């Protein structure tokens, strides 16, 4: 049953990475959208696209934290005592990002919006970087370890890749949003960026081959072994975005984006299994007593019954433009 809870935990990581990731990435484009005049329309789209959904997407993070500390308490404790610097910075980044976003919506003056927007957008870029470094430290078995466990080639790559992948995801999501709002200019604006971000992600992935090969040989061999189908799937989706991004229907593009990012995350999980931390703490060794694990499974089943249809309802209402961000 510890493996089941491990899968539940990792599902949370993937869903946060994809859906939460798209919200974070939107902050990247918000930051780089230019001055008040030039950036007005992309920012307006970003605001109306992620306004109704970001809080629900954010809950996946809480979900991951509580499942980790309940199901695998020793791993949680090891993670928190080793990586307290990036985790603490990520927590504060989340505060700045979300409150900045919520404040900007209710502020009217350009200067005020600029301050709130800068808090939102810059912390949207910085926070995923820290998450990426954390993933790198876990994947390379540096947890538990000293306070510098997140400063290493894999973490650095993970951080940059996390920012780039989120920017890519956000760009394909926003392309679809622009299409839904029948705005061809914005659609082009975002699809160009989606393709550029996909190229950057691909370049980072290639660099990652060399980094992982020397820095995390076990992970590398599993990523190229049993994780290979997922990595390949991700690569195909990424290449398709770059090659045919301007010809594909934006909804297809969005699926490609989810596949590209989701598959590589799943590949990481597959490569890491059955270990939770590096190669020294397995899921079963870190697991809580079985009654606790079953509680998590039951509650998760309850969540699947209650929350998933609700979440689908939210996305559907959002897609049908029943939720007017300017209301």
């Amino acid at each position, binding site marked *: 049953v510890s493996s089941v809870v491990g899968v539940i935990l990792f599902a949370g990581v993937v869903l946060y990475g994809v859906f939460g990731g798209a919200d974070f990435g939107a902050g990247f484009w918000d930051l780089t959208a230019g001055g008040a005049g030039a950036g007005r329309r992309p920012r307006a789209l970003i605001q109306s696209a992620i*306004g109704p959904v970001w809080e*629900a997407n954010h809950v996946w993070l809480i979900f991951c934290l509580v499942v980790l500390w309940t199901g695998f*308490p020793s791993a949680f404790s090891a993670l928190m*005592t080793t990586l307290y610097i990036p985790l603490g910075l990520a927590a504060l980044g989340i505060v700045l990002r979300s409150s900045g976003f919520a404040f900007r919506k209710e502020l009217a*003056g350009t200067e005020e919006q600029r301050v709130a927007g800068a808090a939102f957008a810059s912390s949207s870029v910085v926070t995923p970087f820290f998450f990426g470094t954390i993933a790198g430290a876990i994947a390379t078995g540096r947890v538990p370890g000293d306070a510098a466990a997140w400063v290493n080639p894999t973490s650095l790559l993970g951080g940059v890749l996390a920012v780039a992948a989120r920017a890519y995801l956000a760009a394909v999501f926003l392309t679809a949003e622009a299409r839904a709002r029948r705005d061809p200019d914005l659609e082009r604006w975002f699809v160009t960026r989606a393709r550029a971000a996909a190229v950057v992600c691909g370049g980072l992935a290639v660099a990652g081959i060399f980094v992982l090969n020397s820095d995390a040989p076990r992970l590398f061999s599993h990523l190229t072994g049993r994780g290979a189908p997922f990595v390949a799937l991700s690569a195909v989706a990424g290449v398709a975005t770059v090659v045919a991004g301007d010809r594909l229907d934006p909804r297809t593009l969005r699926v490609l984006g989810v596949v590209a990012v989701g598959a590589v995350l799943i590949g990481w999980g597959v490569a890491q299994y059955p270990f939770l931390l590096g190669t020294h703490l397995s899921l079963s060794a870190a697991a809580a007593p079985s009654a*606790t694990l079953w509680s998590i499974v039951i509650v998760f089943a309850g969540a699947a019954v209650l929350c998933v249809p609700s979440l689908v309802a939210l996305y559907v209402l959002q897609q049908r433009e029943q939720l007017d961000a300017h209301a």
Partner: protein
Amino acid sequence: MSYMANASNLLPAREQMAFTLGFHIILVPFGVAFTFLMLVANYRAIRRGDEDARRLAERWSKVAAVLFAVGAVSGTVLSFEMGLLWPRLMDRYGAASGIPFVVEGIFFFLEAIFIAIYIYGWKRMAPWPHFWSGVPVVLAGIGGTLSVVAANSWMNQPGGFTERNGKVVAVRPLRVFFNGAWGYESVHMLLAAYIVAGFLVAGVYATGMLRGRADRHHRLGFLIAFTVAAVVTPLQIVVGDAMARYVFHDEPAKFAAIEGVPETATHVPETVGGVFVDGRLRYGLRLPNGASLLAGFSPGTRIRGLDAVPADGCIPPNLVTVVHLSFDVMVLTAFALLALAAWFAFVWWRRRALPASRWFLRAAAVAGVVSVVSLEAGWVVTEVGRQPWIVVGHLLTRDAVTTSGTVWWFFAATLVIYTAVGGATFYVLRRMRGRWAATSDDTVTVPYGPADARPALDGAAP
């Protein structure tokens, strides 16, 4: 070496936890109970075609959106802090105390989903479906409160687990969730959320009326919020009174700190105020037999004193003063609020109108702040009253604290960011109010547009 790190991190870790939780707890009533006020206004709007009520509900939902966002992320920080500040609490007991948090996750999820549907659904959804999309928000707020308080009450009366060699080897999840302190602690917090939300919102409209805006919009906003608070306050007094007796029975060490009782005795006086110095509560107002009477309805009721608590698990004397005074502040503020509610109820019963006195409005205007003081004081009683334990009888707070890094830095950064976010929240709410006072137009322009920007993008026109 390790002990040194503990000693140096204990103070900042406790300060940071107190500060961030004290910040978050003010936002809780807005997520939990303010949404109920919003639905009351919404219901009235649909049922009676009441345009004032509709405008109130819509504006309240926008305020709720801002405060829910800040509450969601300040709650997230608390999740991080469970590990960043108290890793050894989670390492040892996460398998038990984590279960209520997992349940709370579902409620938080539902709340986040439906509050978004509700807030963004004003323009395009039909009135009744829109109203019903708000109902899960209120229910999830209740469920979330009951769950998260289960995690806290478990630390006061831990149970439902078997420990061997410092490791939890078996867990009984239902006993963890429905622990001894859960029933009254969770109801107490839930009612507190309704009281604080009611009085704070009523205070805003009372202030408006004092400044001469006594139109129907203001009166209705005041009445909906104040009525809810006025109904819940007497309930809370009854619950709180019963709860004190439960604490007397189940958590004698905390009760001894609350009453400042150094030695086990009968005929214990109730001391109002005072400070605990040299092992005695001094300078307070003593009501003979009061504590014994309140605890057991008889002057002969024996109250276990601090001397009955083993020395290594006994609350430090300076904290006895904190707990005792916090309890007094909580009770006194609660009765002040009860008096205000009674004034309102009496006049409403006789004349179907608000009390005409400006002193009533002045009192109502500050009642919100008073209720926040009461809430914070009650929370201090729970948390400080548990010291030196983090899990009573099982784990000392100083043994749970992190040994990594220097928490002062994290605390300093947190203080800076929270001060900025807290200040910005007030600023944004004031701007919203100013905008609403100045114009009937509730729409905001797009980001980075000038204040009077033309509507950008197709479909975005108000």
